[in-house]
């Protein structure tokens, strides 16, 4: 049984005639690292939100582990699925540790007393996300990249089986973008943990993901293995820009992963 099963899912935002999602059908298998690709406004975030039950699909069916996800309590879902949003703005000062501790909410009782297991989970999550030494700092004083990693730590503190990230590397430099994808890849290695990530970073997605989905105007344009989805033809059509796709020999986990290089307009690349 697939973890997520979406069948012919469409979504319209109120007052907008253009579909944000149009007839999306997809399966997310346990243990996969699925990357959602597509231009701005192609429906990546909407697809994530519909998949996680945050938005109700206008039509079609969305199942999580064989059941519609709104049949479960929020706590039950949150103890299995963690989400890292695109941006989170702090209205009030808060320390890093306090924020990561919020990840324990679905696992703790009504009073929220943190047991030793909870503290361990928080410690481990902060270490894995590389923010162990930031615990006492205030969220307001962190850089964008540090903040992003704290949010990832909070998601890991939920001890989920599924981690969903919406453009986690948008604010990250090369080092932390690589670390984030390495972490996602590491998490899925044992085969029971699943990661779904929406990203603009085609090259990192092609290197690390086991399954890619390329969206355009709310439709799935291509899906499958990186080598099937990341072709010059697909990328050019969807992003409306000339590119070349190469397969450098040694790029980490999956050798020969396709890599995209955008060209200057008007360049003759037919021969490359």
């Amino acid at each position, binding site marked *: 049984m697939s973890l997520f099963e979406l069948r012919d899912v469409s979504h319209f935002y109120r007052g907008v005639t253009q579909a944000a999602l149009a007839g999306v059908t997809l399966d997310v298998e346990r243990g996969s690292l699925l990357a959602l690709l597509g231009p701005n406004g192609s429906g990546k975030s909407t697809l994530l939100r519909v998949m*996680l039950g*945050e938005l109700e699909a206008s039509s079609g069916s969305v199942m999580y582990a064989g059941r519609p996800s709104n049949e479960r*309590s*929020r*706590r039950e*879902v*949150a*103890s299995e*699925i*963690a*989400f890292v*949003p695109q941006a*989170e*703005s*702090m*209205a*009030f*000062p*808060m*320390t890093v540790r*306090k*924020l990561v501790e*919020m*990840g324990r*909410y*679905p696992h703790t009782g*009504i009073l*929220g007393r943190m047991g030793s297991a909870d503290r361990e989970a928080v410690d481990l999550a902060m270490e894995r996300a590389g923010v162990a030494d930031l615990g006492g700092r205030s969220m307001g004083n962190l850089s964008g990249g540090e903040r992003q990693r704290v949010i990832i730590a*909070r998601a890991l503190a*939920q001890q989920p089986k599924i981690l969903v990230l919406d453009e986690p590397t948008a604010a990250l430099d090369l080092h932390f973008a690589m670390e984030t994808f390495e972490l996602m890849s590491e998490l899925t290695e044992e085969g029971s943990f699943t990661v779904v990530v929406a990203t603009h970073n085609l090259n990192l997605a092609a290197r690390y993901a086991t399954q890619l989905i390329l969206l355009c105007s709310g439709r799935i344009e291509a899906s499958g293995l990186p080598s099937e989805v990341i072709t010059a033809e697909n990328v050019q059509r969807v992003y409306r820009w000339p590119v070349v796709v190469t397969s450098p020999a040694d790029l980490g986990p999956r050798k020969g992963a396709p890599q995209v290089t955008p060209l200057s307009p008007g360049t003759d690349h037919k021969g490359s």
Partner: protein
Amino acid sequence: MSRQAILLLGLLLLFLGVLTLGLALGAVPIPVWEVLSALTGSSDPQVETIVLGLRLPRVLLAAEVGAGLAVAGAVFQALLRNPLAEPYILGVSSGAAVGAVMAIILGMTVNSMFALPVAAFLGAVLAIVLVLAMARAAGRGLDTHVLLLAGVVIGAFFNAVVLLLVTFADLETFRAAMLWIMGSFSGATWASVTMVAVWVLPALAVLTGFARPLNLLSVGEQSAFHLGVDVRQLKIVLYVGTSFLVGVCVAGSGAIGFVGLVVPHALRLVGGSDHRWLLPACAMTGGGFLVFADTVARTVLTPAELPVGVVTALLGVPVFLWLLVRSEESL
């Protein structure tokens, strides 16, 4: 004991101290030990009448209303993720005042246990719905500027409605209505103390029970949802709870501004934004703050008396402006 537990204990002592001071100070100053003996029922009858009959209901009403407004302010701020949100600034208090005045004009008695708070509650709900609808119609979600403007405009509108309503009323109703616009504890009676207590104390307990999900909500609705909070249900509970608090407080004493702004802000600076500590701390400090402000209001120009809303505004406006400037800087 944690730092926050120690702070709470300190705030409790401070609260009790201000309460005692509120009983001691007034047109006839009474020494603190005589206040204490009057409370235990072993004092001369004249002192007892002043302390127990006149000042105690007034001090208790101020404490209840202060607790209610401060907690309502803190919850609004978390709900709207905006440190400037406050029942008075958002126009909610003025909405409640319209409800209360309507109830009076329709012939319900001032100290009615149910009718007055419920009417004020409905007025508060109407104001919130209008402010949120205006903020949404402006299309920028819960943008600070739109929200504050909407609140100010709705507040002005409801104040005008109150004035319009009372021009048709008799003089006695007019006087009472004016107190609702400006806020005053001069009409405090044991009946009003009971009326407010019956509603405010359970509402405070319920809201404090939601402190943890409120913590999650204050970092964003989407994040709270994915951390396991039923956001829609929580928001309904919180909006209804705060409207109720504001409605009952306004029914008891009129629209008193800035308590819900100054108190939570000061406490966040001292003890952080965790609502498990912030809400009880707001209840005690808000109570103490209004008792203090009311004591100032009735002693500073003796024998004349200021509306307590004047004192809280004089203290609150500079804090509001400072927060506004600071939030502009952080944009």
